[in-house]
């Protein structure tokens, strides 16, 4: 039995590589679709070509980075609130 069969389907490197290709293709298609379908903007910037894609990506990047910084301040061990005599 080689490694490919013991692993779960979605954990196999070959499958993951193919999925990335398919996903990239879908991403490209959604941006190019804007050339065919008119995206109505309400505040000028949001009608720019590929604005949704860029805005979505950048917002997520910012949120993840902000969460990471905040996590430094706010994260505590799981049993932080647990009383010493608690068995839970």
């Amino acid at each position, binding site marked *: 039995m080689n490694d490919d069969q013991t692993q779960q389907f979605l954990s196999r490197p070959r499958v993951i590589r193919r999925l990335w290709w398919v*996903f990239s293709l879908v991403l490209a298609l959604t941006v190019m*679709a804007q050339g065919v379908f008119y995206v109505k903007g309400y505040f000028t910037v949001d009608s720019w070509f590929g604005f949704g894609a860029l805005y979505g990506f950048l917002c997520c990047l910012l*949120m*993840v980075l902000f969460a990471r910084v905040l996590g430094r301040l706010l*994260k505590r061990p799981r049993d932080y609130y647990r009383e010493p005599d608690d068995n839970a």
Partner: protein
Amino acid sequence: MPELLSPALILLVAAVAIGPARGQLRTALVLLAPLLTLWAVWQVPDGVQGTVGFLSYQIEPVEGSPLRRLFATVFALMAFVGGLYAFRLARWYELAAAYAYAAGAIGVSFAGDLISLFLYWELMALFSTVVVWCGGTPAARAAGIRYAIMHLLGGVVLKVGIEGVVIGTGSIQIRPMLAQDFNSWMILCGILVNAAAPPLSAWLADAYPESSPTGSVFLSAFTTKTAVLALILLFPGEPVLVGVGLFMVMYGIIYALLENDIRRILAYSIVNQVGFMVCAVGIGTELALNGATAHAFAHILYKALLFMSAGVVIYRTGKTRCTELGGLYQTMPLTTLCCIIGALSISSFPLTSGFTTKSMISQAAANEGLVWVYMLLTAASAGVFLHAGIKFPWFVFFQRDSGLRPKDAPWNMALAMLIFAALCLLIGVFPQYLYALLPYPVDYLAYTPGKVVFYLQLLLFSGLAFFLLLPLMKRTETISLDVDWVWRRAIPALVGWLVLCAGPARNGASRLILACRALFAKFAIRYLGQPHTADSDERGVFARSWPIGTTALWIAILLSAYVLAYYI
């Protein structure tokens, strides 16, 4: 007379009867009572259905309107599917408490005056606490107590506001107002406690994940959404709510990103989604209020669906944290599928319910020219896909092979999930059926090619960001501090410190008290003491026998002093 009976009473009677009923009878009761309630909800005509005199007030126990009926419908539906999901696993008292809780929510939906609203509001607070306690662990008991204190305090604030408004206006009618004076602010704050608005949002993520796998399904639906209904009824167009809503939206995303417990991720995303509705109520136009209503309806369905899938995972594996889970999709295909449908709905993916309801809120912001609100809501839509749409299913069902091979959901849980998954898709594909039930006429087209392309770009590139940033989102075995740190850690620590500091002070004080007491005793003995014999000179000054003449002299002196003082 029957028109004065709220449909909520059916569920309340069922809640009482669940305990004594046994076997098949109990199952029939659990499944039929919500359906009967659903029927009764649709028998309530528009307008006030009569009044009852109570003290000097005219109580209106039942008032119908499309808005109220829609909320009551989704609450009854939730009770039915929740009952179906839970009846084989949950203890009878959890089911009874959950049904009484649902009855409270339906009662609030139809309450025609502030007094009935408050009574049903407190019914919800009481029985939701019982549902939290049914988690059965010491942590659940402690979280339940914190939950109860928070909601009872919120209830007191609400009651103060209601009393003020009743005294100020002489009316107990539920009518739109703005937060302009102390009383209306109190009502607003009381409602916002239940909506999990800042700074008191911590109770939600604290209590819900501690309940049983079945209890959290019920908890996810009622409290926050009745608060949204109360806001729509009492504070449409209140500008403060726009800011509050936007804060909740962002708070939910950031905390969910930090979280490891799977139900706590979902709990934070409740705050996030309720934020959309609160913001919509703040915008206050007909489209925005329709959006808030429709989104509340859709939200109850997909959020319950997500909690159900999490519940199945916890029931089958006994594990609650992302770090312990992963790779379950192979042995739990149905649960995975239902979870993905729920996750896509919450992310407002086209063809799911969230797309047709949440986009109404964004559209309302755009129509009013609120650039920042629109931009932040759009950013939040991307963030929802990040924290709930992908993160939740990814870490639970995919991620890596955790070695767990649990069975899929039992038939009743699977059926409950399938019903809600089907409804999520139904509302997504045929939104007109939901739109027809909304409080205001709907002139809104959910599906235009441009809008679909825009949302697909937004969401799919958020997906790209998720997979590229995965190393930054590594799960850690941690919790995140919230405002509740103040009363769970800071205040107890402060009190402990004060007690510690008080030690020396207390010693000093007790020494002072002893010295004072000794001094007092010395004086008492000196003036009042009576040792030895009856008229000895050793007695205290006031305890001695004095000749009558001395007394008369003293009385004369005192009287003349009094007369003198009187004339001066």
